[in-house]
């Protein structure tokens, strides 16, 4: 298949359309504006609907309504905007609606910086809203992965009747890279996908087949709904996705996700050239987190872990520490607030750690 040179945000939007997304609502915020702009052009071409919401809150609630009808629907925002999505996404999770949304992360907290960052990890993986729901969170590190992960997200969301988050960042959203686009689902396929959900969609039914999209329960039913959701989360062991690079004989493990992971990977190669046995563990999905990949390391051999994130303070390190449980030192290599991770910075911190533990 031919390679196309695409900007991350536009690739995300096109992948969604190809996956059958026919509704998008969003509110302008840098650095993800190319997603709604692309959708505004593209969706009408395929019989879809684009709405510019009057706010993030309106947009996520449009997403809620659209998802309830069984139409493959998506929204996107960035960091401080995603904070405003919290209640709406919790509603989608509680009502078990297959909404897909994208966070093209920028600096934080709050307005932070318009430049790229990875400062929403804990929000994305642990508490994207109230009530303790969980989601599959995809963390692409290339534009190609943005495409593949968005395309797959709609299937995952519908499989579980649960929202799925694509956790990208401003570098991925802004950069251009060659991609191979997945197949465009035909109008018939898109129609069939919606039709298959009709029995549980808010689209008009006779009284005896009535459908209710409920983000909560009147009365005492909520615990049963919490239990059902928790049972579904338990099926996610199979959904853990992790990339392990040169870890077989590694004495030093770099831990990174998303944009930082691809930078860490080049650092692993450079460290190897200097005779340091480094490896990379990269959560491809940051939720469910690959605890086993860290927990089952041979700590007789592995002497130290370097957690690499564009976030100060570090966030993913909580999950790494939880898995490692004190069995080797964990150090941090961090940038934040719009300052980008670089290979040079990773090398510097990795060499420091090597000196400390090797």
């Amino acid at each position: 298949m031919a390679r196309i040179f695409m900007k991350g945000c536009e690739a995300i939007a096109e992948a969604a359309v190809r996956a059958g997304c026919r509704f998008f609502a969003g509110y302008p915020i840098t650095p993800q504006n190319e997603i709604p702009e692309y959708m505004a052009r593209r969706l009408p071409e395929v019989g879809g609907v684009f709405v510019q919401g009057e706010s993030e809150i309106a947009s996520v609630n449009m997403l809620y309504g659209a998802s309830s009808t069984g139409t493959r629907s998506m929204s996107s925002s960035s960091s401080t905007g995603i904070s405003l999505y919290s209640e709406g996404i919790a509603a989608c999770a509680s009502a078990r609606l297959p909404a897909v949304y994208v966070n093209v992360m920028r600096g934080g907290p709050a307005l932070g910086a318009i430049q790229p960052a990875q400062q929403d990890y804990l929000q994305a993986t642990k508490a994207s809203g109230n009530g303790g729901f969980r989601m599959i969170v995809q963390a692409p590190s290339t534009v190609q992965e943005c495409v593949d992960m968005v395309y797959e997200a709609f299937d995952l969301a519908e499989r579980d009747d649960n929202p799925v988050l694509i956790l990208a960042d401003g570098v991925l959203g802004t950069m251009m890279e060659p991609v191979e686009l997945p197949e465009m689902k035909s109008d018939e396929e898109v129609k069939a996908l919606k039709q298959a959900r009709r029995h549980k969609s808010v689209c008009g039914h006779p009284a005896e087949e009535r459908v209710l999209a409920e983000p909560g329960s009147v009365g005492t039913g909520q615990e049963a709904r919490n239990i059902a959701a928790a049972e579904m989360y338990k099926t996610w062991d199979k959904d853990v996705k992790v990339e392990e690079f040169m870890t077989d004989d590694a004495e030093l493990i770099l831990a990174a996700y998303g944009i930082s992971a691809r930078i860490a990977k080049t650092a692993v190669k450079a460290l190897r050239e200097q005779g340091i046995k480094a490896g990379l563990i990269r959560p491809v999905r940051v939720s469910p987190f690959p605890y086993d990949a860290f927990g089952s390391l041979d700590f007789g051999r592995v002497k130290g872990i370097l957690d690499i994130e564009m976030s100060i303070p570090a966030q993913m390190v909580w999950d790494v520490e939880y898995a490692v449980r004190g069995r080797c030192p964990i150090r941090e290599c961090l940038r934040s607030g719009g300052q980008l991770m670089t290979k040079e910075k990773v090398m510097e911190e990795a060499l420091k750690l090597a000196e400390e533990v090797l």
Partner: protein
Amino acid sequence: MERDLIVAGFGGQGVMMLGTLLAQATCDSTDKNVTYFPSYGAEMRGGTANCYVAISDEEIGAPVMETVSDLIVFNQPSLDRFLEKLAPGGALFVNTSIADPKIDRDDVNVVEVPVTEMAIEMGNPKVLNIIMLGAFIGYTEVVSKDVVLQEIKNKIGAKKPELLPLNEEAFEKGFAIGSAAKN
């Protein structure tokens, strides 16, 4: 082998177009990996513009680098700001029409291209970036000349076919300077 490039100048000097042309050409006509990362000021107009292009046979890590193998600067502020990012042994392409190529480093190779004057002489000041792209390809041959010429044909030929011959000529003029500087 990864080849990294920063292109920097004023907004309106075609900085981003140079970067995307090169990156797009590499994507379309080679099997190499390539990334392009634009960086603007927050202003919509009149600010400075710079972009990063990486081309490699292997996977590319950071699309934004602290050190690069090549640097193209269209004005003095860009030269002052980015020169420190150029790796020893790297190539510096300077628009000598408005930037001073005398630098206090002797570990890099300087290619002097007076693109602003050349473009005005050619009757269209806008082609300065295409001249510079020609010089860059002539010197580095990071991708072949044909690959870039094809992309110029695709991009400019489709939108403004009447400007295609001028752009091809601009590219060739730059290419000649780049090739000569190599030897």
